[in-house]
């Protein structure tokens, strides 16, 4: 005979204070667990979405970010002749020769400086990135000291808003527009005319060449050709892969940190659940004896207590996730050590995170409940009836 679920539920309800305290302990652990996974996912999502699958980024061999790379004008013009690139309406290929450097800008409010990516763009740069939209102002005119700022830069950094002026490279640069690139890395960049910026920074080389493939399947052939041409010493990457790799180290660091912390914290919460369940068993000794006497089997008693512990875990998990879901409203901005530049990203809650957190919470509940439940199921009928 099985013990109904409501029995376990009511037991929890009767001892509300204890139940609430145990649940809040577990909820906090689940909150930390979910928060750190959400952070790592948010970072990965931001950088994965930054690149498009059919765009190719050409950088110097061995450089893992555009800042470290350089492509001479001569090399860039060789790539420009590739027949695999999409040709635009004006007869020119969909190709941009870009320059990427870092500048130090103070944040609004705190005045703490951080590294910001500044990208010198060409005529096709915007068309190559459909995720980037101008939301206010206008594009910088070629040949003028004008720049546009990504949304996160405009909000967070001093001088990033329209009409404001940022000084670097011995010139004053007027911000004439703000662009939105959704939750991608471009939102944390400043764009301006490549030739003007190269002149200001006294650079003679580009950082990268980006073009769109007519047929994405051509990639392997293009990669082979660029990789082996002795004039180039460059390498071609799919844009999506290129940016995704920049998140790997940081995401791994967050995951390791998160797992270590949550394992330690979960020990605390499991012990909390264990205390609660042991005392639940102890105070109900006579009740358990009675149930056994009525005819409930040992396995039913075991089941009832494990269900009670799992309920604790489940409610804790739901509360923790509920709290963690509010984190999605937050945007974190920190330095990405792989590129050494500022990157804004938000906590991202995915279905897999929800599942992982709930399984984790149930595991905690089970680990806390299994020993007390075994004790309850092993009780001798006569002795337990005598207990009160």
């Amino acid at each position, binding site marked *: 005979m099985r013990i109904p679920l409501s029995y376990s539920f009511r037991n929890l309800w009767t001892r509300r*204070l*204890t139940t609430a*305290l*145990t649940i*809040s*302990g577990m909820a*906090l*652990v689940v*909150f*930390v667990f979910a928060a750190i996974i959400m*952070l790592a996912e948010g970072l990965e999502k931001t950088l994965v979405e930054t690149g498009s699958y059919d765009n190719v980024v050409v950088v*110097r*061999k*061995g*450089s*893992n970010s555009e*800042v*470290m790379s350089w492509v001479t004008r001569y090399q860039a013009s060789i790539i420009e002749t590739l027949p695999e690139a999409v040709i635009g309406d004006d007869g020119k290929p969909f190709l941009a020769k870009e320059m990427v*450097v*870092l*500048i*130090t800008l103070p944040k609004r409010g705190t005045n*703490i*400086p*951080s*590294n910001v990516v500044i990208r010198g763009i060409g005529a096709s740069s915007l068309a190559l990135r459909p995720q980037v939209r101008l939301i206010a102002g206008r594009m910088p005119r070629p040949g003028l000291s004008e720049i546009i700022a990504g949304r996160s830069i405009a909000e967070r950094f001093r001088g990033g808003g329209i009409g404001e002026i940022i000084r*670097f*490279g*011995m010139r004053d640069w007027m911000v004439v527009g703000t662009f939105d690139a959704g939750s991608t890395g471009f939102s944390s960049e400043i764009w301006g005319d490549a030739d003007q910026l190269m002149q200001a*920074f*006294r650079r*003679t080389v580009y950082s990268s060449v980006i073009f769109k493939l007519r047929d994405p399947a051509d990639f392997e052939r293009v990669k082979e050709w660029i990789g082996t041409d002795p004039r180039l*010493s460059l390498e071609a990457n799919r844009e999506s892969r290129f940016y995704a790799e920049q998140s790997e180290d940081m995401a791994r660091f967050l995951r390791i*940190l998160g797992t270590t*912390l949550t394992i*330690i*914290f979960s*020990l*605390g*919460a499991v*012990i*909390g659940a*264990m*205390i*609660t369940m*042991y*005392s639940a068993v102890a*105070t109900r000794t006579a009740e358990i004896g009675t149930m056994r006497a009525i005819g409930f089997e040992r396995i039913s008693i075991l089941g009832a207590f494990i269900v009670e512990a799992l309920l604790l875990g489940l409610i804790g998990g739901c509360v923790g996730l509920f709290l963690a879901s509010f984190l999605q409203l937050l945007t*974190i*901005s*920190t*330095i990405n*050590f792989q590129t*050494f530049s*500022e990157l804004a990203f938000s906590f991202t809650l995915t279905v897999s995170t929800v599942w992982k957190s709930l399984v984790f919470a149930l595991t905690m509940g089970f680990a806390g409940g299994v020993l007390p439940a075994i004790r309850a199921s092993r009780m001798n009928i006569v002795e337990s009836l005598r207990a*009160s």
Partner: protein
Amino acid sequence: MYILKLLLRNAFRHKLRTALTILSITIAILAFGLLRTFISAWYAGAEASSASRLVTRNAISLIFPLPLSYKDKIRQIDGVKLVAGGRWFAGIYIDEKNFFANYAIDAKNYLALYPEFIFPPDQKAAFLADRRACCVGRKLIERYRWRIGDIITLKGTLFPGTWGFVLRGIYDGRDTSTDERLFFFHWDYLNESLKKTAPRRADQVGWYVVEVQDPNRAAEVAQAIDRTFENSLAETLTETERAFFLSFVSMAGAIIVAIQLVSFVVIIIIIAVTANTMAMTARERIGEYAVFKTLGYRGWRIAGMIIGESLLITMIGCLFGIALTPPAAQVLGKIIGTYFRAFQVDMATIYIDIGTALLVGLLAAIVPTWRAVKIRIADGLRRIG
């Protein structure tokens, strides 16, 4: 004395429950201590910095170099004692996972600026005499088991190619906070190669370390340096070594804030666990409290008993936690120590541990105490279980 005996007896009436509570407090205090140590390890670079050293770098950002000619101009400025240039090399040893910092330095002056790197005299001389030589810190030696005379090959990321260096010197840190995970080689070696392969990038320096004669004049000298290069192609930003390190730390600010928040979460978790134990204890003993009240005990005595018991349990857990923190930090330091220059538990952490445990003990006892004190004698006596 009598009171303490009563508290102890009471605390260990439920041996299993108390032991579990103490265990969870121990774990939490341990975790809290380790998190704090982790955060202070982050700041170790700034702690180890000298007050008499300034760092001059390109005002646009660190990725832009400064010309070699600045060295002599800086040395001419009043108050400057010694100048040495360094350049971030960003070489990779075998694989990207083997990360360590490697710098091309103006060897003689740079080592003179950092007396905390202690070399055996013959090794220092051998390093300075050989242009292809490199020298590394003790921790890197422990990690890779290099020996003097070994050839170490780094793959350049900023400077293409593979670069071979002969290990000539191993240094030890003078203080525990000195960074023993650095790899230095001669800037001249890098520069001579660049002159052949990429002449436009030769004769450049990443940053200058400047020693001032009088630390009290550091701010003034820093301003004088920046003024010298105002309105030039490479304007400079000079700050104290400490400010320079802190600017790196503050860039990772969000992560540090997150770790700090998380270390408070662990405190809340133990408050919940301890409060739970105390609530259960007090509920079971309501009848006893009613008897105490009948005997004439006042509310504050009963409150004292509950709070005392709670404090006793948390303090025992706290002591275990504090005792375990240094060995745990040592083990952790062995695992991730290569990323941090020092991983040491400081006294402040221990004081904060004790303070936290006291707070947890008090907070956990509030609700049970309030219930026990408020209960009417008749209700307490009537209640069963």
